[in-house]
C-alpha cells in the first residue's frame, strides 16, 4: 500500500497569475483559509496512467501550496481485481458485460483487504471512481465527511452494476459528477465539478516549432500533409476504428494524415488487445500512424496536439474527455462526439464541431480542413472557453467550494 504526500510541484501557484489573473488566486487563498486546517485525503486506484491520476498529480500539490493539507493514497488490487473493475467501468458506461457473482465477491474481498490495510486519516475523504467506492464502510468508524468523485459517464449504466455500486454511494455525504447527465437519483447531495487541465504542465505548456518538429521526426511524421490527431488510450470506447473509417472518407477529398496516439494504464488490461486490433486495421496505409506512447510522454503529446490541423475525439462514451480541453487550450479546432462531458467543452459551432456518427465526423473534419479561417476562430473561442471554465484553477476553486458546502446546506453562504 502506498502513500504519497505531495507538496512539491513543477508549477507554483503564482505562475498561473498571468493566465487567470491575480484576483482569481486571491479568491482561492481566501477559500483555502476558510477550511481552517482540515486534512483532505484522496483515494483512487493508480498513481500512473489515466485522467484521474493526471488530475490528482496537479491538484494535490497546488492544494498544498494553498495551505490545504491534501494527500493521496491508492488501493491495492490483483490483476483479476482490475479486470473486474474494468468490466464495472464498461458496464457503468452502458456496455453489456458478463459480470458473475464471483466478480462481485472478488470486488468485495479486495475492498475488505484495503479497508484493513489502508489508513483513513483525512477530515474530508475524496474517493475517486468505482474501484475504491466500497471503502465507505469505514465511515461509521471515522465519522468524517466522505465524498465520492465519479469521473465516468454513468448516465446509462447496466442496472445490475449500478445498483451494486449505489449501495456504497448512497452512504457518502456527497457525490461529484462531471456532467449533469451523469447524475443519478440518490439520497445525497450531488455536485457538478468538471475536471481540468494544467496550462503549465509538460502536456500543455507553450512549445516552439523546433520542439514540435523534433517530436514529429522522432515518430517519423511529416508536417507536409495536414494532420488529424486523436489522443487517447487504446480503448474500444474511444472508437479508434471509427476514427480510421472517418479518415478514409476524408482522405477521398483532402490529402491528409491520421495520428492515433495513446498509451495503456495499469488498471486497464484490455488496452493491449485493442492496440493490436487498431494496428492490424491500419496495416498497409502509410498515412495512418499508430503511436504507442509510454506514460510520461507528455511533451510528445503536447507536440502532436500542436502539430495537428484538427483534433478529433470520437468517443462512444466519455467521462469528460480532458484531451478536448487540452486541444482547445492550444487553440485547435476540434471535432468530437456529443457524449458524456464533451458538450460542456464543445459548444457546437462556437468552440468546435459536435458529431454523432462516423459520417458526421468525416463531414466536420472536411469542413475544418477546407476552411482554415473558420477553424481558427473556433480554436480561439475554444481557448477562451477553457480559460474560463476548465483550467486547474477553476477546478481548485470548485473543490474548495465543495469542501465548504459540505458543512453548509444553504443556497447562499457568507464567509
Amino acid at each position, binding site marked *: 500500500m502506498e502513500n504519497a504526500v505531495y507538496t512539491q510541484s513543477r508549477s507554483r501557484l503564482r505562475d498561473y497569475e498571468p493566465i487567470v489573473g491575480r484576483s482569481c488566486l486571491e479568491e482561492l487563498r*481566501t477559500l483555502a483559509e476558510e477550511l481552517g486546517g482540515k486534512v483532505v485525503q484522496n483515494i483512487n486506484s493508480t498513481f500512473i496512467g489515466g485522467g484521474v491520476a493526471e488530475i490528482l498529480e496537479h491538484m494535490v500539490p497546488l492544494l498544498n501550496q494553498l495551505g490545504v493539507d491534501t494527500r493521496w493514497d491508492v488501493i491495492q488490487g490483483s490483476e483479476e481485481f482490475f479486470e473486474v473493475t474494468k468490466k464495472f467501468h464498461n458496464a457503468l458506461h452502458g456496455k453489456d458485460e458478463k459480470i458473475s457473482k464471483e466478480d462481485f465477491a472478488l470486488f468485495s474481498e479486495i475492498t475488505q483487504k484495503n479497508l484493513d490495510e489502508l489508513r483513513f486519516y483525512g477530515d474530508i475523504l475524496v474517493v475517486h471512481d468505482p474501484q475504491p467506492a466500497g471503502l465507505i464502510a469505514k465511515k461509521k468508524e471515522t465519522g468524517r465527511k466522505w465524498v465520492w468523485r465519479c469521473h465516468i459517464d454513468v448516465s*446509462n449504466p447496466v442496472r445490475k452494476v449500478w445498483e451494486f455500486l449505489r449501495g456504497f454511494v448512497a452512504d457518502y455525504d456527497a457525490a461529484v459528477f462531471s456532467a*449533469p447527465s451523469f447524475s443519478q437519483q440518490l439520497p445525497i447531495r450531488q455536485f457538478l465539478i468538471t475536471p481540468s487541465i494544467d496550462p503549465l504542465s509538460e502536456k500543455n505548456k507553450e512549445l516552439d516549432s523546433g520542439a514540435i518538429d523534433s517530436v514529429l521526426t522522432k515518430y517519423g511524421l511529416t508536417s507536409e500533409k495536414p494532420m488529424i490527431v486523436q489522443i487517447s488510450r487504446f480503448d474500444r470506447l474511444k472508437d479508434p476504428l471509427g476514427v480510421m473509417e472517418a479518415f478514409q472518407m476524408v482522405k477521398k477529398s483532402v490529402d491528409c494524415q491520421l495520428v492515433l496516439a495513446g498509451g495503456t494504464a495499469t488498471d486497464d488490461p484490455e488496452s493491449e488487445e485493442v492496440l493490436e486490433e487498431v494496428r492490424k486495421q491500419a496495416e498497409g496505409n502509410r498515412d495512418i500512424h499508430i503511436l504507442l506512447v509510454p506514460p510520461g510522454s507528455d511533451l510528445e503529446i503536447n507536440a502532436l496536439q500542436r502539430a495537428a490541423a484538427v483534433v478529433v475525439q470520437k468517443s462512444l462514451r466519455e467521462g469528460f474527455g480532458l484531451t478536448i480541453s487540452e486541444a482547445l487550450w492550444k487553440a485547435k479546432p476540434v471535432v468530437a462526439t456529443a457524449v458524456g462531458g464533451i458538450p460542456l467543452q464543445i459548444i457546437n459551432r462556437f468552440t468546435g464541431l459536435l458529431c454523432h456518427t462516423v459520417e458526421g465526423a468525416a463531414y466536420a473534419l472536411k469542413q475544418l480542413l477546407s476552411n482554415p479561417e473558420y477553424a481558427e476562430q473556433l480554436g480561439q473561442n475554444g481557448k477562451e472557453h477553457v480559460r474560463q471554465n476548465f483550467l486547474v484553477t477553476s477546478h481548485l476553486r470548485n473543490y474548495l467550494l465543495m469542501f465548504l458546502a459540505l458543512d453548509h446546506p444553504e443556497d447562499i453562504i457568507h464567509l
Partner: protein
Amino acid sequence: MLDWLRENWSSILYPVLVFLATYLVGLWIRRAAYRAFDRWATGGRWEGSHLIVQVTRTPFLAWFVMLGAYLAIHVSALGPSTTALTDKVLVALFIISITWVAVRLAEKLLRLYIGKVERLRPSEALIVMIARITITVVGALILLDAWGAPTTPIILLLAAGILIATLAFRDILANLLSGFQLAQGEQIKVGDFVRLESGEGGYIDAVTWRNTQIRGLDGNLILVPNSRLLQSTVINYGRPLKKASEPFRFYSRLHLKEVTGLKARNLTELVGTLKKVPGSVVYYHTHNFLEEHQYLTPEPANDFALWVSDELGDEVLGEKLASIDTFGFPTIAALRARIVGVIEDYLSKNPDGRTAPAGREFHFIRSISVILPTAYVVHDLREFVEVLRKISINSLSFHVFEARLRLQKGVNDFSIWIEDCLGDRDLADRLAYLDPYNYTLENLRSTIIQLVEKRIK
C-alpha cells in the same frame, strides 16, 4: 651645560621670542577676526556661518602655534637636515588639522541641509559617510604628496576602487540620483494618487533614496525603484476626491453547481418542475451563461431558451424565452412567473409534442453562492474606478447581478453606495439604468469605468 648656555643664549632666545610673538599675534588676530565673524554670523544671512565659526575657532590658534614653531625653527641655528625634517612634520600636522576641520564642517553643513529635505533624511548617514571618506582621502593624498611619497599608484587604485563600487552599486546610485530628481521636480508628492504602467494604483506613502513607496488600495505596499519610476509612464491624479460617508467594500461571489436530480424531457415537464424548484435553480439557469460564455459576443441566451431551441427544435418558443428581459424583473419570483407564463401560454396554443432525445434532457441545477470579502475597500470615486479595473468578474457579477436580483436589493450595489454615501444621485441613476444583460462582463466593467471617469473629470 651652563657654559654652553652662556655662549649660545642668543640662538635659543631668538627662536623662543619669535614663537611667543607669533602666538601672541595669533591670539590677537583670532580675537579680532572672530568678533567680526560673530557679527557676520549673528546677522543671520546664512545659517551655515555659525558652523564655520564654531568649527574653526579652536584649530585657528593651533595653526598660529604651528606657524610660530615654523618661524622659530627657521631663525634657530639648527642644521638644514633637522630644519627640513621639522618642516615636513609641521606641514603634515597642518594638513591633518585642515582635513579634520573640513570633515567636521562638511558633516555639520550636510546635516543642516539634509534635515530640511524630508526625502533625503533616510539617506543622511550615507551621504555624510561619503563626504567624510572623500575629504579624508583627499587630505591623505595631499599629505603623502607633501612627504614625497608616490601618489599616482594610489590614485589609480582609488579610481579603480571607485569604478568597481560604482558598477556594483549602480542601481543604488541610479535610484539615489532619481530620488534627487523626483524631489527637485516635485511632480510626485506624498499623498498623491498615482497609477503605474503595470496598472497598479495607490497613494504615495514616501519617497526614499532608493524607492518610492505606494500604498495600494488593497492595503499592500508597492515599492517602485526611483529610477524605474522616472523611466515609466505614471499618471498622477493628485489629491483624493470627495470622501464617502461610508467606505465601499468589494465582495466576490463564487458559484458551486449542485445537481438537483430533477430533469425534463418536454415542455410540460419543464414548466411543471420550474414551478417547484428553489429560486437558486431559476437564478442559475438565467445567469450561468453570463459567466461561462462571457467571452462570446453575442452571448448565448438563458438555458431554457437554448434547450427549447436546440433540443426540442422549437425556435419560436426559444426566441420568446430568449427575449425575456431579465433586467425588467426585481425578484427571482417575478422572473420565474414570467418564464412559466410564456411557456404555459405557448402550450395552451400548441400541443406539447416534442421530446428531447435520450441524454439531452434538461437538468435542473442549483446555484450555491459563496460570498467572500476581498481586500478592496474604497473611499472615493477614484479609488472605486481603480479597484473596478482589477476585481474579478465574479466580484462584478455579485455587485451588479446577484445583489439586485438574488439578494433582492432592487438595484446594483454600486448605485446604492454612490447615492447614499457620496450623494451623487445622477451618477447612481446612470449606473442603475444601465442594463447589464446587454454586455459581456468585461464590456460591462469598461462601461461602468467610463461613466465614473467621465464624472470625475
